[in-house]
């Protein structure tokens, strides 16, 4: 079984978010980056668990520049066998999906796993787009994944409950919380990662259909309002009219 895990590099969760160039570019000054948690904790670790149980190989793939090599190395340290980086600076989810799908066309894999979304842009689009480009099934928000023969069983989160689906392979599956437990890369894995293959491949030409016009930050939090514990009516009024949560 050949597993391909799509990984992204995202700002660290406590990074200060700011924009430059008339709010059209993310300000990278002083920002620390991490491997996208949904890709790392769930997609990659589940692929490794399945490989350990049933054999196969786990390859991680990233679309990005050499800046991303550090997070790719981390994925290798956790246990991926090898890595591929498609050498371009994508501006859209569609470009990422296009690049990965073109790679898979010439390097077929049985299962393509990705996190349910990245924690920066949160669009959750890449998995579905890869499936569309490859004309193979896509199952989103997988909380549990098992492989049997040439099919996968995925338990997925839906509004108010869960749904279990069986899908023929190859398929694209996006991983959500619950699919696996985070693994800490050990010292031996970290040392070995340096020697594992990282194949850098050129990108295929791609023209984005959409461009980002600008970004805005959410409004700052307003000051805390202290309500007299005896004045429940006022509390209810504020929750209804200002907070709009009732």
């Amino acid at each position, binding site marked *: 079984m050949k597993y391909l895990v799509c990984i992204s590099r995202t700002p660290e969760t406590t990074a200060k978010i700011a924009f430059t160039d008339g709010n059209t570019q993310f300000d990278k000054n002083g920002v620390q980056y991490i491997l996208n948690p949904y890709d790392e904790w769930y997609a990659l670790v589940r692929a490794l668990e399945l490989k350990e149980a049933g054999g196969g190989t786990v390859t991680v793939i990233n679309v990005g520049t050499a800046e991303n090599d550090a997070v790719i190395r*981390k994925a290798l340290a956790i246990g991926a066998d090898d890595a591929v980086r498609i050498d371009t600076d994508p501006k859209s989810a569609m470009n990422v999906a296009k690049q990965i799908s073109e790679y898979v066309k010439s390097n077929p894999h049985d299962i393509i796993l990705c996190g349910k979304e990245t924690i920066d842009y949160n669009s959750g689009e890449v998995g579905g787009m890869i499936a569309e480009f490859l004309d193979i099934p896509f199952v989103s928000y997988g909380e549990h994944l098992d492989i049997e023969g040439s099919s996968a069983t995925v338990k997925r989160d839906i509004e108010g409950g869960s749904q279990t689906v069986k899908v023929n392979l190859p398929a694209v599956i996006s991983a959500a919380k619950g699919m696996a437990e*985070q693994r*800490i*890369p050990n*010292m031996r894995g970290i*040392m070995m990662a*340096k020697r594992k293959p990282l194949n850098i491949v050129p990108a295929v030409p791609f023209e984005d259909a959409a461009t980002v016009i600008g970004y805005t930050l959410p409004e700052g939090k307003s000051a805390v309002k202290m309500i007299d514990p005896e004045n429940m009516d006022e509390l209810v009024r504020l929750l209804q009219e200002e907070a709009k949560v009732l």
Partner: protein
Amino acid sequence: MSKYISIENLKFALFELLESDKLFALDHYKDLDKDSVNIMMDAIKDYADKSMYPVFKEMDQQPAVYEDGKIIVHPAIGRFMKDAGENGWIGPTFSYEDGGMQLPHVFHTAASHIMECANNNMTGYTGLTGGAANLIATYGTSTLKEMYVSNMLEGKWAGTMCLTEPQAGSSLSDIITSASPQTDGSYKIKGHKIFISGGDHEYSENFIHLVLARIEGAPLGTKGISLFAVPKNRITDNSGLEYNDVLTAGEFQKMGQKGYCTTHLVFGENDDCYGHLVGAENQGLKNMFQMMNGARIDVGMTAASVATAAFYASLQYAQERSQGRRILPGGVKNVEAQQTSIINHPDVKRMLLLQKAVTEGSIALLLQASLYHDLSHHSSEEDKEKYHLLLELLTPIAKTYPSEMGRVSISNGLQILGGYGFCTEFSLEQYYRDIRIMSLYEGTTGIQSLDLLGRKVVMKNGETMKLLTKEIIASIAAASNYDDLKPYADKLKSASKNLEQVVMHLLQFAMSGNHERYIADATIFMEMMSNVVIAWQWLKMATTAKTALVTGNTIQTSEFYESKIHTMRFFFKYELAKNNGFKETLMDPDSLTILEDKKSVLA
């Protein structure tokens, strides 16, 4: 989860201040690179967030206890020993041949800092195990290494250091634990050892105690002390384990670090305890000091880490707590205005800056010392000697300054919380209790100060001090390139000269044979010299920050670098300035603590 550490500050110190990644050019470290150590530190931070910080308070509330002849510790210790072993965190600095990863000590110290900020009650268990294994790997026979080291590095067996006895604490020359040679080459061990950290618990199937003892007929004093590896359970002929007559007699209940057990061990009560000599006969104390010196850096870093976590706890409180109003021009207050966050009050800001200055200054010094350790083993022969001497000189300061001033900084942090600081609901009181032991562990502040003034300052006829002065002068020259840093470079130059004058003054007593007078105020000298050394670290940090801002070659935000420069200025104004008083005390002709006429002044 509350913030308990600044990874940005740690990486600034490692890569921008010390350029520790240059070590990877050395053959011994060639398999590592910056990405490797970053992944390691990020992994440890993840682990600390999930498995260490969440049980920090719990371990204080459920302290280690002695019940039915056993020490009961928090279950998190069992998980931690296992995880640390599996992840290669016990002894990563060991050579490949001894089962390690040849990680430089500077990165190991940094990794320890992350864990200790999260929970200082856990790391001693693995730290001592790694230290004990290192002694066996360095001085033990190949048989002894095979018997013990791999199980210790894998976290299956624990290690301890057993020095103190009821009648011999700081005065190790008075230990009486005995070792009788046996025909098979082993030694029968008999004696009591107290204050043995991590000495026993249910989560390790065996403990390898590194015990100082006297072989029958050995000379009196420190020259007759040998070092032995004494297992709690000895290995049988069929590779099983049998009890080796190491009895756990009790657990000391402490004011802090309650999750870290401190035991009383009795060796050979039934005349059936055996151990093996580690290193040559009568070389025990010297060999033990390899572990002890490393342990002193570890204690310094634990202190710096506890104080760091306390700093972030009080900083968060100061940002969130509103009290009072700022004083407006003319000395009036607008009573109708909303209350201001207490961080805006100058005295609160002063206390926070003191915490920042102490903790970040300590971290810089400890990493510097650890880097010297690496260079003392893996550089040119000439440089090895230089870095070894610098490490020797700085070790007592690196242990003492964070322990003593870390406590002061936490006290200031607790003060920021007002009455809440005294309450168990907040963590400051625990940090305050936890750090108190650091100035006692591995040689008290008094012992460290005697070591500094009595041995290190005069080591190699003062050449070691000259090496340090040379390093400081180089840092002064680098800072002087920037107009706004030059006044501080000049202040450090002046402080360094004052220190030199004090040394010359005190040496007159030593040269005239009055050694008691020479070392009588060693602790005050420690305070004075520590301030010079920490000021040196702050000037270096400010110069690094300034260079980043000027060149635009920034890794951190500009606010980060500016805060470094501001804190350096704070340290020079509020802390280094105290050296004038220390100088006056140290050069005062009045000798008030030495009483020749035996007359009591404490009546």
